[in-house]
C-alpha cells in the first residue's frame, strides 16, 4: 500500500467531506491498534474464547482420492461462531469501536451472514445495532433476519436501487453521515474507502496466519495453491495474507459466474468484460458497470457474492499477477457442494463452494505430493432455503407448504 490506501492504482478514499474527520479518527485508531501488540493479543484471545480459533485445517481424504491429484485441505472458517469468517472482522472492529468509545454500530448485509455477525458482536459488546439489508435479500434470507432481530438489532430493508448488497452499503453510508459521533460503520468486507480494505484484510489475516502454520506442521511444506471465493474479498484476502510473501504459493480467487459470463447474469469483476475500473462507494476498483459508469445488476446463487465491486487489494493482486482469478457458475457450485457434502460430510456455504469448484478443476492435474488449501469461508446450513431450491428437493417444498398452512389456520 502506498499513501492514502492505494494498492497499485486501486483503493483510495472517495469520501464526502462530512466523513473525512470520522475516517481520520478511524485511521488513527486502526494505526494505533496495529502498532500495539496487545491489541492483536486481545483480538486473538477473544477469537479463541468466544469463537473457535484456531479453526481446524481438515484433510479432505475422500475428495483427494476422488480427484486423484493434489492433497486437498480445507480451512474451516465454517466453524467460527455465527458460521463464517465474517466473525473475525466483526469482532476485531468491535474491539476498535470500544477503543474509540462509540456506542452504536451499523452494517450492511447481503447474505445476512455479516449482519448476524455484527448483531452478535453488538450483543456481546453491548452496542446498539442497525443493519441495512436490501429488500430482495431480506426476502431470500429471512432466517438471518430473524436471528438479527433476536440479537437485538434493528433490520432496515433497503428499497432503493437494485435492493441488494450495494444498495444496503449506500444506505449504511447515509446513516453514518448523520450519526458518526456515536456510530461506527462495520463494513463487512475488504472494500470501501481506506482504511477499510486494509483493516478488514488485517483482521481476516488470522485465517492465513493459522493456515500457514497448520499446513507447515501437517505437511512440512507450503501448499502449491490456495483457493478462496471472492465476494468483496475479505475471506480471500484473509487466507491469501498468510502466503503473500511465499512466491511459490499460487493464490486463486473464484468469483460468481452466475448463469455464465456470456449471459450477463453474474458477479465477476475480475474475469469478465462487463467490468471496468471505476469509483463508487468510496473506493476505486473494478466494478460491474456500463460504459457511462452506472452500476449493473449482478447475479449469483450466493447472496454473499452478489456485489458490483471487489477489494482493491485483489484488483492489485490481479494487476501484479500475484493472484489468479476464475469463475464458477451457479450450476457448478451446486455440483461441487453436493460432492463435498456427500464425500466429506462438510457443508460449505454456497459462497465457499465457488472456491471448491476451481480447486476440483485443478486438483486432478496436480501431483499427489502437492498440497492445496480451500478456504471454506462459511457453513451452508444457513442457506437451506436457497440450497433446497437449487437441489429442487420435493420433501422440503411439501414441508414449507404444510408449515404455511399451519400459519393460515
Amino acid at each position: 500500500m502506498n499513501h492514502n490506501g492505494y494498492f497499485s492504482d486501486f483503493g483510495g478514499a472517495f469520501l464526502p467531506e462530512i466523513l473525512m474527520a470520522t475516517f481520520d479518527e478511524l485511521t488513527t485508531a486502526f494505526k494505533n491498534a496495529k502498532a500495539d501488540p496487545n491489541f492483536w493479543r486481545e483480538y486473538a484471545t477473544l477469537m479463541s474464547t468466544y469463537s473457535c480459533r484456531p479453526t481446524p485445517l481438515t484433510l479432505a481424504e475422500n475428495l483427494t482420492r476422488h480427484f486423484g491429484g493434489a492433497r486437498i485441505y480445507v480451512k474451516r472458517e465454517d466453524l467460527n461462531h455465527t458460521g463464517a469468517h465474517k466473525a473475525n472482522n466483526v469482532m476485531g472492529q468491535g474491539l476498535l469501536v470500544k477503543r474509540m468509545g462509540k456506542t452504536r454500530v451499523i452494517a450492511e448485509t447481503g447474505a445476512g451472514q455479516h449482519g448476524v455477525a455484527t448483531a452478535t458482536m453488538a450483543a456481546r459488546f453491548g452496542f446498539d445495532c442497525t443493519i441495512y439489508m436490501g429488500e430482495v435479500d431480506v426476502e431470500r434470507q429471512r432466517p438471518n433476519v430473524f436471528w438479527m432481530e433476536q440479537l437485538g438489532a434493528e433490520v432496515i430493508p433497503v428499497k432503493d436501487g437494485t435492493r441488494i448488497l450495494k444498495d444496503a452499503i449506500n444506505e449504511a453510508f447515509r446513516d453514518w453521515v448523520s450519526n458518526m459521533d456515536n456510530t461506527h460503520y462495520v463494513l463487512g468486507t475488504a472494500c470501501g474507502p481506506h482504511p477499510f480494505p486494509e483493516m478488514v484484510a488485517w483482521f481476516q489475516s488470522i485465517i492465513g496466519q493459522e493456515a500457514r502454520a497448520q499446513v507447515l506442521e501437517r505437511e512440512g511444506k507450503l501448499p502449491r495453491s490456495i483457493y478462496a471465493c471472492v465476494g468483496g474479498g475479505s475471506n480471500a484476502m484473509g487466507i491469501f495474507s498468510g502466503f503473500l510473501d511465499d512466491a511459490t504459493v499460487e493464490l486463486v480467487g473464484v468469483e460468481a459466474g452466475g448463469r455464465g459470463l456470456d449471459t450477463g447474469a453474474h458477479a465477476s469483476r475480475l474475469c469478465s468484460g462487463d467490468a471496468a475500473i471505476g469509483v463508487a462507494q468510496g473506493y476505486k476498483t473494478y466494478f460491474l458497470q456500463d460504459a457511462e459508469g452506472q452500476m449493473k445488476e449482478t447475479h449469483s446463487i450466493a447472496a454473499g457474492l452478489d456485489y458490483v465491486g471487489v477489494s482493491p487489494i485483489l484488483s492489485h493482486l490481479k494487476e501484479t499477477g500475484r493472484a489468479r482469478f476464475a469463475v464458477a457458475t451457479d450450476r457448478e457450485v451446486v455440483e461441487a457442494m453436493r460432492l463435498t457434502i456427500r464425500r466429506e460430510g462438510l457443508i460449505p456455504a454456497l459462497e465457499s463452494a465457488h472456491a471448491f469448484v476451481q480447486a476440483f478443476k485443478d486438483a486432478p492435474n496436480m501431483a499427489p505430493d502437492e498440497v492445496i488449501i480451500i478456504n471454506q469461508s462459511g457453513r451452508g446450513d444457513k442457506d437451506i432455503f436457497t440450497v433446497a431450491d437449487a437441489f429442487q428437493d420435493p420433501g422440503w417444498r411439501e414441508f414449507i407448504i404444510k408449515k404455511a398452512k399451519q400459519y393460515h389456520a
Partner: protein
Amino acid sequence: MLEDYLKDRRKEKDILLMTHIVAGYPNWDACFDLVDAMVDAGVDLMELQIPFSEPIADGPVILKANQDALERGVTVARCLEFGREVARRHDIPFLYMTYYNILYRHGVDAFVEDMAVSGIQGAIVPDLPPEEGDDYLRAMTRRGCNPIFIFSPTTPDERLRYLSSFAQGFVYCVARKGVTGMDTRFTEELSTYLARCRQATELPLALGFGVKDKQDVDYLKGKADIAVIGTQTLRLVDTQGVAAVGNFIRGLR
C-alpha cells in the same frame, strides 16, 4: 469568473439563490421548463445533477429522482447536451453536480472539455476530495472551470483552509451531518459554523442541505452569500408539478 460574478451580484442582493435539478427528471421537457421557470424567478445560479446509480451523499428524494431518471434511460451524453442547451439559452451560471465515477468513466479531461465548450462554469463532485482529485483539478484549472468544494460542520479549521486552497468560484457549506433532504435546525450553532467557514476562505459561501422556505433564507442573510434550494423544489415538482416552482422561488427572498 464565477467568483467575481457572485460577488458582484451579492452587492445587489442580500443573498443569492442556487437551485438544483436532476437532469432528465421527471422528464426532459419538464427540466427545460424548470430551468426557464427558475431563471425567470430570479435564481442566481443552478446545479444540474447528472444522475448516478450510487448517489451516496443524497437522501431519499434525490436518490429516487436519480434512479427514476436512469430507469427511463437518461444517459450522461444526453445530460451534457442538456447542459449545453440551457447554458446557451440562459445567462446565469450553471454547474454540474455528479459523482466522480461519471467523470472518471467519461474521461476526466473529456468531461471538463465538454463543460468548458458548453459554458458550464463549474462542478460539484461530493465524493471527490482534493486528495483524490489531481486529474480533475488539473483539467478544471486548464479549462478555467470552477471546482466547487464542500465544507462540513465536522471539518476542522485546518482542513477548511486546505480545502479552500483548491476551491474556486464559491464554497458549498453543508449545513449539518446527514444527507440531502433532511430537516436542518437554523440555530446559533449554524451561524457559528458559518463564521468558521468565513474565516477559512475569501470565496462566497453557499449553504445547502435543508433550506426550504423564506424563513430559512432570511436567517442566512448576512451569514452566507448563497442559499441552496435542493430537495425542496424536487418535492414541489413531485407533489404540485413544475408550474408551482416559479412562485415558490419568488417567495423565498
